[in-house]
């Protein structure tokens, strides 16, 4: 638990200046508040007259408190956005093959909710703890050892006990929040299915059930927090009574000021379990194993772009049947190759191996005669443009979606790619043209149109090798023929690997392979 939190603190290093400044301003504000109380009490008891410093401290306290809040909050938000971006980068390293069994809704909770739950760590725990350290000697000096002991108990021991008591509650809460989000997201993403199968009341009942779980977890945690608050209050009351029994007004006022400063710590302690659970989930998502790690000292990238598979054996999971069993395949630079075979035979797996999304169990994949296991994956991927079945259209403009493949592309190049993918006429007909929003996963376009936008993006990339996985799925026969004819001209000089379940006859191809029984067999070209 503490290990996770310490690692999160490590991620905040970049904002160390801000965080430290926040702590210093906060301590200054605390010092002025306590001095104000002490001087006030002395004046009241007639030990000193009303000193002029009281006026300075009075206005200083108001200003310092304002500054404290501004600086600590700024520091916290800066640190949190660092964690978000760090997490996205970490996820990107291991996610070339998609999200797998990790649910997007769950991840969203991690990124947004869990990262936010970490804010209490600095604002409500670390900063007040620093203040408490400063106050222990002051309170002990002013009100005696017994009161000092009670103060230390309330500042350090009670929050720890509260944290321990609510550790499970925090974990349950984080899970319950994720569960509710997934249920709502499922029902709303699947609104078509829900309507078609009249599942409205079932989906509502599921959301209500998940909400009840969440409310139950929140109620349990709120109860612990309220209890921690009550115990801390009673501890303060005992200290106050002890100070009163000494009959020294300065001591009494110091106790009041001191306990006010740490009043929130026990409640924060109860939230620490929540923060630790959040930290654990954030790190768990970030630490997911990388399927194909990069070599420690990568070989230089080769100049050539021939692609060769040598004796490949591969299965996705140990308990699944092998996809390839001794597959060998040679795709020379600039060749146009078709890979044929029914769905599920492993055509997409071949692309996954070439892109270093997965590694073969045996055999080698060679790019320009160099084993890609020795090459950095980012560089390998830069050489290969891939249109997959799962290519994602982002909820953004057509332009932004296309520029993903080539950020510096000119408008003319964008239109050329759209033209080649046989979608330019449709885009030209839109009032907002390239600035048209495509919707969730391209929802504002028909299936075939969305597919062609993804195709235009793949064609736009500068990669010397293009692997097109069923580029014609969702196209009508006429458009399909027109596209394949265009492809013959547009991809001149590039290697083209066409993965398809059938040929229509207009493709200009150098080689045709058929996948069967885990091997590639040359077919009549």
């Amino acid at each position, binding site marked *: 638990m503490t290990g996770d939190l310490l690692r999160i603190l490590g991620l905040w290093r970049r904002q160390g200046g801000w965080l430290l400044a926040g702590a210093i301003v906060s301590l200054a504000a605390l010092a002025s508040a306590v001095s104000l109380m002490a001087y006030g009490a002395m004046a*009241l008891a007639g030990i000193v007259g*009303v000193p002029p410093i009281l006026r300075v401290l*009075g206005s200083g*306290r108001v200003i310092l*408190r304002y500054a404290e809040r501004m600086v600590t*909050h700024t520091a916290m938000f800066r640190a949190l956005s660092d964690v*978000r971006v760090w997490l996205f980068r970490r*996820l*990107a390293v291991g996610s070339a093959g998609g*999200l797998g*069994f*990790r649910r*997007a*809704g769950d991840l*969203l909770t991690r990124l*947004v909710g869990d990262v936010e739950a970490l804010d209490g760590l600095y604002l409500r725990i670390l900063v007040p703890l620093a203040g408490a350290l400063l106050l222990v000697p002051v309170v002990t000096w002013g009100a005696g050892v017994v009161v000092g002991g009670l103060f230390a108990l309330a500042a350090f021991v009670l929050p720890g006990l509260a944290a321990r008591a609510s550790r499970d509650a925090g974990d349950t809460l984080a899970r319950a929040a994720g569960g*509710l*989000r*997934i249920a*709502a997201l*499922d029902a709303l993403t699947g*609104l078509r299915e*829900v309507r*078609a*199968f009249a599942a409205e009341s079932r*989906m509502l009942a599921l*959301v*209500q059930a998940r909400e009840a779980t969440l409310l139950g977890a929140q109620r349990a945690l709120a109860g612990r*927090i309220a*209890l921690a608050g009550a115990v801390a*209050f*009673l501890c303060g*009351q005992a200290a106050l009574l002890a100070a009163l*029994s000494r*009959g020294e007004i300065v001591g*009494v006022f110091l106790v009041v000021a001191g306990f006010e400063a740490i009043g929130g710590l026990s409640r924060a302690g109860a939230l620490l379990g929540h923060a630790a659970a959040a930290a654990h989930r954030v790190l768990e998502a970030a630490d997911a194993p990388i399927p194909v790690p990069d070599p420690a000292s990568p070989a230089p990238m080769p100049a050539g772009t021939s692609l060769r598979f040598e004796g490949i054996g591969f299965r996705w999971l140990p*308990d699944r049947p092998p996809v390839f069993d001794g597959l060998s395949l040679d795709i020379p630079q600039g060749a146009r190759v078709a890979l044929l*075979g*029914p*769905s*599920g035979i492993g055509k997409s797996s071949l692309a996954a191996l070439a892109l270093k999304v997965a590694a073969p169990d045996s055999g080698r994949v060679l790019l320009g005669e160099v084993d890609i296991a020795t090459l950095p994956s980012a560089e390998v*991927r830069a050489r290969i443009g891939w249109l*997959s*079945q799962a290519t*994602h*259209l982002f909820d953004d403009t057509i332009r932004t979606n296309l520029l993903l*493949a080539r*950020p510096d592309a000119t408008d003319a190049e964008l239109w050329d790619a759209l033209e080649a993918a046989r979608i330019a006429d449709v885009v030209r007909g839109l*009032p907002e043209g390239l600035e048209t929003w495509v*919707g969730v996963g391209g*929802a504002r376009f028909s299936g*075939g*149109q969305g597919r062609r936008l993804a195709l235009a993006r793949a064609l736009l990339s500068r990669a010397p090798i293009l692997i097109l996985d069923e580029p014609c*799925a*969702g196209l*009508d026969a*006429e*458009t399909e023929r027109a596209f394949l004819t265009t492809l013959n001209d547009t991809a001149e000089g590039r290697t083209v690997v066409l993965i398809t*379940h*059938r040929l229509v006859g207009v493709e200009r191809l150098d080689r045709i392979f058929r996948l069967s029984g885990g091997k590639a067999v040359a077919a009549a070209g």
Partner: protein
Amino acid sequence: MSSAAHAKTAARAWIGAEQRVGFRAARAILALNLLGTVFSVGQIFVVARMLSGQFTALLVAAFVALAFGRAGLAYATERLAFGVGAAARRRLRTDIMTRLLAAGPALLRTRHSAELTAIVVDRVEAVDGLFSRYIPASVFAIGGPALVLIAVVWFDRWSALVLLGCGLLVPVAMAAAGIGAAAATRGQFLAMERLQTRFLDRIRGIATIVLYGRSEDEAQRLAEAADELRVRTMRVLRVAFLSSAALDLAAALALVSVAIHFFAGGGDLPTGLFVLLLVPEFFAPLRAFSAAYQDRLHATGAAEALADVPPMPRPTPPVDFSTVAAQGIEVVFEDVRFRWDPTRGPALDGLSFHVMPGEMLVLAGPSGAGKSTIIEMLLGFIRPDSGRIVINGADIVPQALSRLTAWIGQRPVLFAGTIRDNIRFARPEATDADIDAAAAAARVTDFAADLPAGLDTPVGEGGFGLSGGQAQRVAIARAFLKDAPLLLLDEPTAHLDPSTEADVLESLKRLAVGRTTIMASHSAAAHAFGGRRLDIREGRVA
């Protein structure tokens, strides 16, 4: 501008209505709070005596009793406040979710499902403070200081007047600060929503980002979005902090005035201490109100999104289709016109056709011709702009439609759960044997045999572990299980290879027996499947 003004008015009306509900629920909290103030005043009276040198057993006993009383009251108030907030959230979430489900699939054309999820989850969470903190605090902010003032008047009228004056300064300062904050909080919620939508979309497409080597760019843009969120949040907080600084100043002013009054006037020590110690107690409810004011701002931001959710559609009278299954379903389109978007051409442009009971109709035509629009209309997702759709002589009613139809779309959504759960979705009361039969008929069993837990294998976001074809077969199994008299197929084999396509069409042929079937497809194999072919071009029969 006018739509923003409209949203603001709607949000204000919404908050007003909710506050009336909230005040009723908050009465018990207020009662506990006021009792807590009485205990505090009593304890301060005791402390003032003790500080004046009267440390008697009776006072100690009173102090201890009051301390426990205050702790108990604070605990009970917190539990009660949680219950009030939870009840309000439960009520609102059910209301919003019901309305979103009633509005149906047409919503997804204009809104992101992540955005809708954020409304159901985060926005509803954000109004919790309105009920559990702000509303009780807003009443207590008047009642609490008033009680303290009564105690002070009893002992020293001049101090009471000072407290009243300083107390009245507070709402003035807070109102001045609050106007700016309400404007800023709207911007903050917009930024938060943009950030969330961006996260989910980018995470869904993370493989595409990584394979195009753009993860660093996206991380940069994410950092910019997070920065925007921080700047906007700080803008809201700065105003809130300023208002609490104003409160601090008012409290300090009151404290100094009262202290000087007693030093100069030489009043008796116990009374002087009593009044001085009551000053923080006087401001405590105002402080709580100032802290809770942020909850009100959060609720204002959320209220705009909540008020924006479509209202419940008017209920349509139920139509009796009980004899339909025996006779079969007859479908007639009469001069149907429809536009998805006023800026684009019509999707359907005066379409008319007729399908007899038990007939198989294949809608053919290039992508974008309007085939899917016809299917969505028959599913009741959308309604014609003009013209009629008549089923067995009656105009279509969405509620009755979902009982009559089974549907297989282009991209099925698989929910979190096992394959079995996903098939059972079509008919929740189905037995395991029913599901096994449906899975076998749709050839789900064939690939499920290779999965670690067969039909009980969990499937993830968008159906990981299942190829597009396999996910489609789960959808076909759903249709088998539902066993409805009208079968709507929207490009069901678009992503399948010829041999799988032939298998699936064979299954579909068995499924279609005795049902009226309408299939949109441009696949040659599907056309060879049989049935009458209707060519659609630009929203009309060609």
